[in-house]
């Protein structure tokens, strides 16, 4: 019992590089602590990052470089602790625990058509799976990324998106909520891509494969977006087992003890953060 | 002396006459916990018969008022009907103080004050019967109880009223607001006797006082119960204690003596101008801490230093307070 490791103690990684993604978001390349088994990290998992003296926050992994043993985190400056992390400089040490959570069911996604639906900073955890497809050419049959942001100022990963567009078997569609002056692209909510309201494409899912058999939808965004996505998918009778999303409940311990992320019989930190829509149906609407 | 059956019947009768749809009643009903009543919110006329009034109606119902109003502000739905609230004479002050603090709108509230000889807590009852009770009934000063083994016990309540019931000043109804009185007399007179405790600050030196207060407070587990039951603590979810912020790094959620002291001192100085000494914080403390050491002192100092008597006027702003209705940062 007590000769077990103390899971509450953080290890330390070094911040190697920091990039400003937009006014709110910075990305941090962090070298993984020696004790960490990076080979086991799965896209969709999260880590507990500490700014010691201020506190700890759960942050999804955006990219894992298995060779260099580095981790990429994209952190929005939304609270007191993330603000402190934003003040850190390359060379600083950052407290890190993890990886925690289940991650995307990578094995089950092999050979599938993947439709990634991201709302705003929801693209952060999904970047890990997009990156996975870049690193493992041919692992997925086809990938379509639908990214919606409030405005062009909220875009993240501009450079990466350009690169993703070059990749074969991958389509990227970007939309903003309201029209803007120098914007010629799509306007409207990202959920419109799933309905036939979208001006230049209709019904992305039908176009990929009208039987939906081999298609999986991965969606991350704010809680309201989930509601609209589910509504749209319900209309076209898309199978609920083939939809996965990530919950972002308040968390403290990351290991299923503190109780903050409890939602129904699930602990988001242990059983999640990735849930299928089917599982979500049995959960109370407390997310 | 109060005949509780008559009071209960008269209250129900009155409410049935005045109640209309959209109205709301705050009163007391049976809780199924022996020796305890529970507040009840009545929205339908047929539920009025569930109202029961007796000397274990200890809770101060004023605490619910600000919360309901805040709900209405948040949802943007204006209050439609009238709100009837049945209160003991001592609780009238809390409601009036909330009106003065612009936490509630007085035109929506009708006070129904019921006569009272003093109230007893379930802790008092336990002392009285020296046994766990299954059931208890009241008439006048008499309490008739049934023990767990169904033995019948009767006892006289008059010596066991809550400490606050010995303070005649708290019981007197300020003559500022219109209210309906349920009882046999118009002038309320306190007829019971209760144990009295002096304010310890009067008799002790500073060091002794600190020692005594520390001994009490070291029991605190910082559950926040005293804050959440307090009608004067209406910051609700915006309380500085809930979410320790970086801007106030000296507040943590630790349960150490200095943090406990800080919590109670901040809280009591916050509520000093509008605390009506209703004593709810002391009654409900799960750790049995005598919080009256603070509130009695502050209540008196407020009167002494500023000439303010909280709960005595529904329009005068207390001198220590200066915020406005609907203001974001209380």
């Amino acid at each position: 019992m007590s000769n077990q490791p103390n899971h509450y103690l953080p290890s330390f990684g070094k911040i190697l590089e920091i990039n400003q993604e937009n006014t709110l978001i910075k990305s941090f390349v962090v070298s993984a602590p020696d004790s960490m088994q990076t080979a086991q990290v799965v896209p969709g998992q999260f880590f507990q990052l500490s700014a010691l003296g201020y506190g700890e926050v759960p942050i999804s992994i955006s990219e894992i470089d298995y060779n260099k043993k580095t981790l990429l985190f994209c952190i929005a400056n939304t609270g007191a602790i993330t603000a402190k992390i934003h003040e850190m400089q390359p060379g600083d040490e950052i407290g890190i625990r993890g990886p925690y959570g289940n991650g995307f069911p990578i094995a089950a996604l092999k050979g599938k058509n993947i439709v990634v639906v991201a709302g705003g900073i929801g693209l952060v955890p999904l970047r890990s799976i997009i990156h996975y497809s870049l690193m493992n050419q041919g692992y997925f049959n086809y990938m379509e990324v639908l990214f919606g942001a409030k405005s062009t100022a909220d875009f993240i990963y501009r450079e990466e998106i350009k690169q993703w567009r070059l990749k074969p078997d991958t389509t990227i569609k970007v939309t903003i909520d309201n029209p803007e002056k120098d914007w010629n692209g799509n306007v409207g909510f990202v959920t419109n891509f799933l309905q036939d309201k979208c001006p230049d494409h209709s019904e992305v899912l039908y176009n990929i494969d009208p039987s939906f058999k081999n298609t999986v939808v991965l969606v991350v965004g704010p809680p309201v977006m989930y509601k609209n996505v589910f509504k749209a998918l319900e209309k076209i009778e898309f199978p609920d087992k083939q939809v996965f999303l990530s919950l972002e409940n308040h968390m403290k311990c990351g290991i299923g003890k503190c109780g903050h992320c409890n939602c129904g019989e699930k602990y988001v930190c242990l059983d999640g953060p990735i849930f299928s829509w089917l599982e979500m149906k049995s959960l109370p609407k407390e997310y | 002396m109060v005949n509780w059956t008559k009071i209960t019947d008269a209250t129900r009768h009155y409410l049935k006459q005045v109640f209309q749809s959209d109205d709301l009643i705050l009163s007391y009903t049976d809780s199924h916990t022996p020796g305890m009543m529970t507040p009840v919110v009545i929205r339908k006329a047929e539920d009025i018969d569930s109202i029961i009034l007796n000397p274990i109606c200890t809770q101060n119902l004023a605490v619910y008022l600000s919360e309901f109003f805040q709900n209405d502000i948040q949802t943007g739905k204006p209050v439609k009907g009238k709100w009837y609230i049945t209160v003991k004479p001592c609780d009238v002050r809390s409601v009036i103080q909330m009106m003065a603090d612009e936490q509630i709108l007085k035109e929506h509230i009708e006070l129904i004050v019921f006569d009272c000889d003093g109230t007893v807590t379930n802790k008092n009852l336990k002392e009285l019967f020296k046994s766990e009770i299954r059931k208890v009934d009241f008439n006048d000063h008499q309490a008739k109880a049934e023990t767990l083994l169904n033995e019948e016990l009767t006892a006289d309540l008059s010596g066991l009223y809550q400490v606050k019931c010995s303070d005649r000043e708290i019981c007197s109804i300020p003559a500022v607001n219109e209210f309906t009185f349920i009882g046999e007399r118009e002038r309320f007179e306190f007829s019971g006797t209760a144990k009295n405790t002096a304010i310890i600050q009067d008799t002790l030196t500073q060091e002794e006082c600190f020692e005594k207060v520390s001994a009490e407070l070291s029991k605190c587990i910082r559950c926040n119960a005293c804050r959440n039951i307090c009608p004067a603590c209406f910051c609700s979810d915006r309380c500085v204690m809930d979410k320790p912020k970086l801007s106030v790094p000296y507040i943590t959620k630790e349960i150490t003596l200095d943090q406990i002291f800080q919590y109670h001192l901040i809280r009591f100085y916050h509520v000093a101008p509008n605390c009506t000494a209703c004593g709810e914080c002391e009654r409900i403390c799960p750790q049995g801490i005598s919080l009256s050491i603070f509130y009695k002192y502050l209540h008196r100092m407020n009167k002494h230093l500023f000439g303010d008597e909280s709960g005595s006027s529904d329009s005068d702003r207390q001198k220590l307070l200066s915020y406005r209705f609907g203001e974001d940062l209380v």
Partner: protein
Amino acid sequence: MDTNRIYKKDMVQVFSALKKLNISVIGQGFDEKQRLVFKKVSSFQELALDEITPLQPVKSFLFPPTEKVFSYAKQDEKYQITPETSPESSEKKVLFGLRPCDVHAIEYLKKFYDGHFPDQPILRYLENTIIIGIACEHPSNACFCTTMDISPISSTGADVFLTPTENFFVIEFLTEKGKSLQSAFSEVLKSSEATDVQWKQNIETETSKKLLEKIEINSIKGQINKAYDKPLWKKYSDVCVACGGCTFDCPTCTCFDMRDVMESKKTGYRYRAWDSCSFASFTLHASGHNPRNTKMDRLRQRIMHKYHYTVTNMQTWSCTGCGRCVRVCPVGINTRSILKDIKEALHE
């Protein structure tokens, strides 16, 4: 089962033997203000076993209300972490005279804090704790252990079990841990008589008479979530003041908060403190979104967690029917009534 007798007058020797073994004893007694509490006792006389259980649960000796997790110091841009282990956690202790409800609660804590990611600090406390259970003769008017399938004479989870009679206890050493205590008792153990098996049964009969009516909820075990959308919650959440008393005094509530304190520019520590699902801040996101925004959501969460979620996850109620939530509630919300209402709502 081997049973013995131990006379109450001989307990003096047991206590001094435990002292010699460096084992501290925690049991229910009165503090200096005559409040019934769990506390460290040095003699048998200090125990108040003929009272109901103290309102404050014994869990604060195993899972302290506040505890430092680690402290840190920064040196040459590098952090040094020192785990904080309180001396109490490795101190050998005996919980003397715990009622079956509280013994079950500790069983639950053990199960909960173990698992995939064991909570090492709390498990250390539990490892060094020996539980001496006692058959319950003095239930309160809020008790409902039988509703939660716990008998007032259940010895499950206890290392040693006592059955009280007027002059002596019938004592059973049940586990290896319990047997490690045998030496402290050995000098005063008397052999038991054939009739001693009767005592336990007598207590069960007598205590059952005192308990309030049992609510048959096994028929709805595993289905309580079906009451999620029923109107019954409003009645209780209307009057709940979200004081958190029920969770702080619950022997099976396990939630905690973790926060940092900076002591100087380079040093500080992380602590954890009890937290409660009744508080709005418990689930509040940094964005301002709150998954359980209303008092009703939070009250329902507490009930659902105790009576449904742990049934699904751990095949056990996380309630032992100790009645503390009922006793502490300042507005008279009665958990038994909620269970009754759930049952009615499901049978409609």
